[in-house]
């Protein structure tokens, strides 16, 4: 970056290296995702998606597990997104960049991001399950995951907001537009990709998490009746089948394939909705 290559050469180099990188990334991801889908999809059927696991998961389906997963993720995102986006907005738009609280909060979030997820699990177990008497429950699992993905949401949203040029802020201020309006109509739309990416990264991470959930939302495969019931999520199910249940491999692949397909649907939906909302925002008749 610091060297100043001649433009054409830089262009060619960047292009070559870039395509090579894209090729590597796509090939390896394709390999991984392909092998999961290839092994898994043949086992997937409607009854697999709707029924309860039987024989430690070797038979039956993952219906109840999917419900628990959806509930845990809702609790998690319902807490982490408002909190994280709010914190990022404050850090970026309201606080002085060099002030101590900002440095402190950002530093501590960096620290939080590197806490091993199993430690989050033990933390959640002691604080949410035991001290707060939530027991092994979907609520406790969601709260634990929310703590875990918070740094991700904050940092990506923050980075997105910081990439918005300051002219926009000055322009809005010069028109005496309040900061709440500027945020809602100008800054957040401009930073929308950052926010969406933050949420998507958080969602993916939460959906993929195992260690933190074994200790909090638990291992129970019964259909949850409330947020205070224990419920096994798909990734815990996959972990158990792959690492703990002899002969569970086929069903582990099938569950992983389902998880990937659901994530794909959510991600595509989010991307399309974000694009459409942006267009709508630009064109909306006042």
């Amino acid at each position: 970056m610091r060297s100043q290559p001649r433009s054409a050469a830089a262009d060619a180099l960047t292009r070559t290296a870039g395509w090579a990188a894209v090729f590597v990334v796509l090939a390896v991801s394709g390999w991984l995702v392909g092998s999961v889908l290839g092994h898994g999809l043949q086992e997937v059927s409607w009854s697999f998606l709707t029924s309860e696991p039987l024989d430690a998961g070797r038979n039956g389906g993952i219906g109840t597990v999917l419900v628990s997963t959806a509930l845990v993720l809702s609790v998690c995102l319902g807490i982490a997104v408002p909190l994280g986006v709010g914190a990022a907005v404050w850090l970026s738009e309201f606080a002085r960049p060099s002030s101590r609280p900002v440095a402190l909060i950002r530093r501590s979030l960096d620290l939080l991001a590197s806490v091993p997820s199993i430690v989050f699990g033990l933390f959640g177990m002691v604080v949410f399950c035991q001290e707060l008497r939530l027991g092994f429950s979907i609520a406790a699992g969601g709260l634990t995951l929310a703590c875990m993905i918070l740094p991700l949401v904050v940092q990506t949203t923050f980075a997105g907001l910081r990439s918005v040029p300051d002219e926009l802020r000055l322009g809005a201020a010069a028109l005496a537009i309040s900061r709440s309006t500027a945020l809602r109509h100008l800054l957040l739309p401009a930073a929308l990709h950052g926010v969406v990416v933050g949420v998507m990264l958080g969602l993916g991470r939460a959906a993929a998490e195992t260690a933190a959930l074994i200790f909090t939302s638990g291992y129970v495969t019964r259909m949850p009746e409330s947020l205070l019931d224990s419920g096994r999520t798909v990734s815990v199910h996959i972990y158990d089948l792959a690492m703990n249940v002899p002969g569970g491999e086929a069903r582990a692949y099938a569950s992983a394939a389902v998880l990937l397909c659901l994530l794909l649907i959510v991600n595509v939906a989010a991307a399309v909705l974000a694009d459409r909302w942006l267009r709508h925002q630009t064109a909306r008749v006042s």
Partner: protein
Amino acid sequence: MIESLSNPLLSANAQGWSLCRGGCAVMCAVLAVTFLSGCGAEPDSQAVVRDNGDIEPARGSGNLKLSGKLVLTGSSTVAPLAVEIAKRFETEHPDVRVDVQTGGSSRGIADALSGVADLGLASRALKKDEVEQGLVGHQLAIDGVSVIVNADNPLSSLTSGQVVQLFTGAITNWSELGGEDADVVIVNKAEGRATLEVFLNHFGLKNEQITADVVVGDNQHGIKTVAGNRLAIGYVSIGAAQSEADLGTPIRVLPVDGIELTTENVASGAFKITRPLLIVSKGEPTGLAAAFLDYAKSPQMHDLIRAQGFEAVTQ
């Protein structure tokens, strides 16, 4: 300039300490609210169980109406079995909820001691100090530990002495045992695992004597490692090894000292590298816990136990 402009602020000065204090206060408030709601929810789990203490004479009989919630935590080896037993128990007693949680034998023991769980699950025998603290182990099933190698390995059996030599590094090349000329890859289990303790006890080894090349955690981890490495030798739970070998995973169970490692040999006691699978209670269990324990130990459970690759205890 961009850097310095980067935080627009209308004279709102962020005061570090008031901020932190405010944050703490809110955190406490949130925790308090959750705490209260948590308390409100509690009676329908614990208190009912306690109510069941009154109908204690109903031990084991399925005719009497049992209700309430039972929490079991512990060994990830026992948990799948416990889940299946719990499911069957729930169908017989529709008002009962049995929640099984994993996290390891130590956790099961700790949770049974602290009362976090009504019953604990352990895949090893209780230690002396644990018994002194009032824990009682109820044997649910028995599990053997078998030595496995890759399916490509030409060896057909080993003696105890050879196992010891292999694992302590006295034999480092397969050719010394008539195999191909390549280094042995020793797959050991992680510190604290019941399988490791059983293995060490049986062969009279100490963990630091073992010259491991790879350390694994769960049984499946060990099986996949050996399956993926021609030169590997390891040891895993016998039920897991056999069911994986039957499914076509390229591993082979090696008889040690000529004793075929069948679950029958484990059950009869001919095969000695075994460990008990326990349900742990603090003191003698009462009420719902006792009913569940009796149910779990009853012969009707033997099909479930075998389906998970373990051997039932015949008393």
